[in-house]
């Protein structure tokens, strides 16, 4: 029973309509984003469902999940990912120190998740916000939002807001 198809049938139809007939495969990435929106990760079940909708194998879908860094599997599941850019331009403006301090404050190392399973802090490559360093994006709650020109204080405040169940908006 393809419950993914049932729950999102209207949206899936809209996505399929974006591409010419015979090119349904193009919807793989949008469907994976859709699946991830709900639970914050792409489950094995999602992969099978999408494979069923598009008529391609689960292995091919899993292959795509593995290639792109924004897709996360069940094993990598977490509530909110605080993805801090530490690439060259941001690093020239102190992003490395910002990350270190943020991690110290939160009590975890980059790549780790807080014990309550809510917050993961990650180092990521350039987010195209080099003029507003330090910055990070928050992936979680079905959205990706940018938080630029951050200070340690503003970042910690945001994390607390997330903890309190409030979705992080643009600042």
């Amino acid at each position, binding site marked *: 029973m393809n419950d993914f198809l049932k729950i999102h049938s209207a949206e899936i139809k809209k996505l399929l309509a974006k591409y010419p007939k015979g090119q349904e495969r193009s919807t793989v990435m949008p469907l994976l984003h859709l699946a991830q929106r709900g639970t914050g990760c792409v489950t094995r079940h999602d992969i099978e469902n999408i494979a069923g909708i598009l008529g391609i194998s689960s292995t091919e*879908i899993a292959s795509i999940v593995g290639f792109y860094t924004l897709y996360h599997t069940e094993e990598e599941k977490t509530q909110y990912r605080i993805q801090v850019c530490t690439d060259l331009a941001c690093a020239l403006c102190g992003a490395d120190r910002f990350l270190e301090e943020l991690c110290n404050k939160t009590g975890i190392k980059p790549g780790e998740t807080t014990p309550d399973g809510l917050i993961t802090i990650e180092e990521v490559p350039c987010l195209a916000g080099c003029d507003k360093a330090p910055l990070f994006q928050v992936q979680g709650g079905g959205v990706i939002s940018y938080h630029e020109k951050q200070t340690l204080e503003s970042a910690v405040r945001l994390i607390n807001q997330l903890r309190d169940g409030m979705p992080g908006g643009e600042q």
Partner: protein
Amino acid sequence: MPKQISLTIDNIAVSAPENTLIIDAAKRAGIDIPVFCYHPSLKPVGMCRVCLVEVGRPIIDRATGAVVTEADDSPKIQFGPKLETACTTPVSDGMVVLVNSEKSKAARNEILEFLLTSHPLDCPVCDKGGECPLQNLTLAYGPGKSRFRFNEKQQLAKNVPLGELIFLDRERCIQCGRCVRYQTEIVDDPVIGFYQRGRSMQIITRSDPGFDSYFSGNTTDICPVGALTSTDFRFGARPWELKSAASLCTHCPVGCNLTIDVRREAKSGGDIAIKRIMPRQNEAVNDIWICDKGRFAHHFADKSNRITKSSIRKRNQLTPASLETVLDLVASKLRSRNRKLVTLVGGRLANEDLYNLKQLTEKLHGSGFLYNDMAGGELTCQMGLTQGTSLSDLKQGSVILVIASDLHEEAPIYWLRVKQAVERGATLIVINPRETRLDKYAAYKITYRYGDEIATINQLMPGKSEPHYPAAKVIQKAQGLIVFVGNEGLGQKSSRAVMESAAQLLINGGFTGKVGSGLVAVWKNANTQGAWEMGFELAGDLQKMIRAADVLLIAGADPVGDRPELQEAMQSARFSVVLELAPTATTNLAHVVIPVQAFSEREGTYTSAERRVQIFYPAIGVKDDVLPDYKIAALLAERLGISLPGESARQVFEHMSGHITGFKGLSYQALCEMPDQWPVAGGKNKYFGGTASANHQGVGVQLVLNPHSSRIQSTGGKVKGQTAYDEKKLWAVPVTRLYDQGNTLLHTKLLEKRMVACEMRIHPDTAALYGVQTGPVLLSFGKAAQQGNCVLDETTPLGFVLVHRSSGIPINEVTAVTLSGVNKSNQSIGNRNK
């Protein structure tokens, strides 16, 4: 005719047709350019970069279009700023390729260095060592020392089962992609793929079971390193310890060419043991591929599973006796006057065995029969593939018709060859009651209800002005028509009718004797076709036949195993002699059992369903006094004053070619002729085509069409059909699954998990109607009842239950059945049949 291009490769003048890749042009000219990701059967991808070579082209004056020349009038050659991959660059006129220049060799050295940075130094424990392209190329072109630090090596999992048949070592993988591309491009089973990117790229499988493909073993041949190994062979032996024998697969009538690799070892008590089966290249039959059943299911021939001594039943127990004693006893039974000899043969037997048994039977005025579920073989003798017809030649204009066969299950390599024919432009028409894996390649798919085979085929006969199916027009216009007939839902009678219809289709369409045409029956065994060629006819009423015989001689058949209802008749047989490899239900009831040699222990020939006769040679020795069937027949004959050839298989073959019409003029020499084959597989250059074996032993010969006593006449397109199956009843339909529980698959532990056992497939609606669900069910038919496992399958037609042949449910024809659920205490909940 494609245009011929002239170029030079390492100063050697080479001529190649337009669009040839440099790599292939070089290979044909005898120059080996190293490759990893390139494989001549796959589309080039230019990923590994090891085939980088210097490529220079003549300079063309933009204004005049003329070639710019040097002082001596030779064309001025400009080499590109970068090296180019030979596997992706097509040849062009005047091109200059430098394969072994300093620059090219330096690039090769550097690419090899890159590959070796994280590639583990596993050679001492790696199965590929000794036949490893990476090893060979490193020695030839690679760096002698590593500049990479050991502790910085990428560490990855080393013993990952991709399913239980194939193991993956992620550290050894060099990300050439051959395995993934093979699965996607050639066999359409994209069940392995890459995961993650950059240095972390690794192979995964997400199918259930893992690496769910009937062709998975072939990836271990084309993997250029020891990343993919088969569970069957890994840690088994070193390639240089192996001796090879040319053989043939015995599992189905395709006749794939094999190499059996053996080694004498202490582990087997000093015996020579089979270590692995590899494909042997035959571009007319199986290219360089074999299916996993052929590759892994050879353990039925293991000595430990076999009958080793002749025996005589004394006081209801089989007691060992010498072969002489046994043969004397049998001869004595045959000597008495008016004794009725009935010989029953199976498709396991080689042509030589069949010939001698037929001769013996005839000379003793007995009756010889073929034990087979499918009829119509005499039609294939007359209407089989016209000599010169090869599936590899089919292209635009050829039409292939597949009737009542799920080729992927019945003969996977036929499925592959038909698919490849379609990809070259042939038109495919599939006629089947349900979905098959061939459907997506079919231009036309005609679905009929089990029982309506004849009516459906009749609709395709030529001469109809307004044919019901557009496919009929396609058949009319075909340059050649090949018809495959399988045994999907067919028994003896129904298969005969279907075969007749198929033959009529060919006759009425004017395809008789045309190259690119003919009838191919997908028999159950490797040499069923051979039995038909020898003149054996189908055994009809087996019970009657068994009871009527004074001496019943059974060779290569297990009728009681397939049909338990024959137990009583067999028990009451007056005197039965069974020639067999291993204990079966039939040998358990025989008066005399004589062990015979397996295919791996002897020489002989098989005739494939395409009517190609090929030789197989012994790979291992025999113990005790186990002889081949033809020899036993000759020894028996001798005792009865009949002279039959028996010194060697070749001797019998030579007799055959003198006496059997279809074999006239054939000789071993003809069977052993070797044409040039492309791609070049195996041999010294293992990186080009993979480790599949080169074929030096011959590709066999197709028989001429063999008219039997009565030539088939056209019936004007009318064949008597069957009555339709009552829609108010439930019908069990026998179908084939590759991994069943047949005698030749037993003892292959490796495939146990994939073998189907007592499985019944029912559409969910049918299940609901009969009140059953997934899980144990009881199938009742006639006086018998069988418990099995119900699996809901939406592709099963309504009103039918699919049961698999040779998997524990003894249903061999479409049979009316009833279904009932089974409660926890395993009692039938009663007949819910509505």
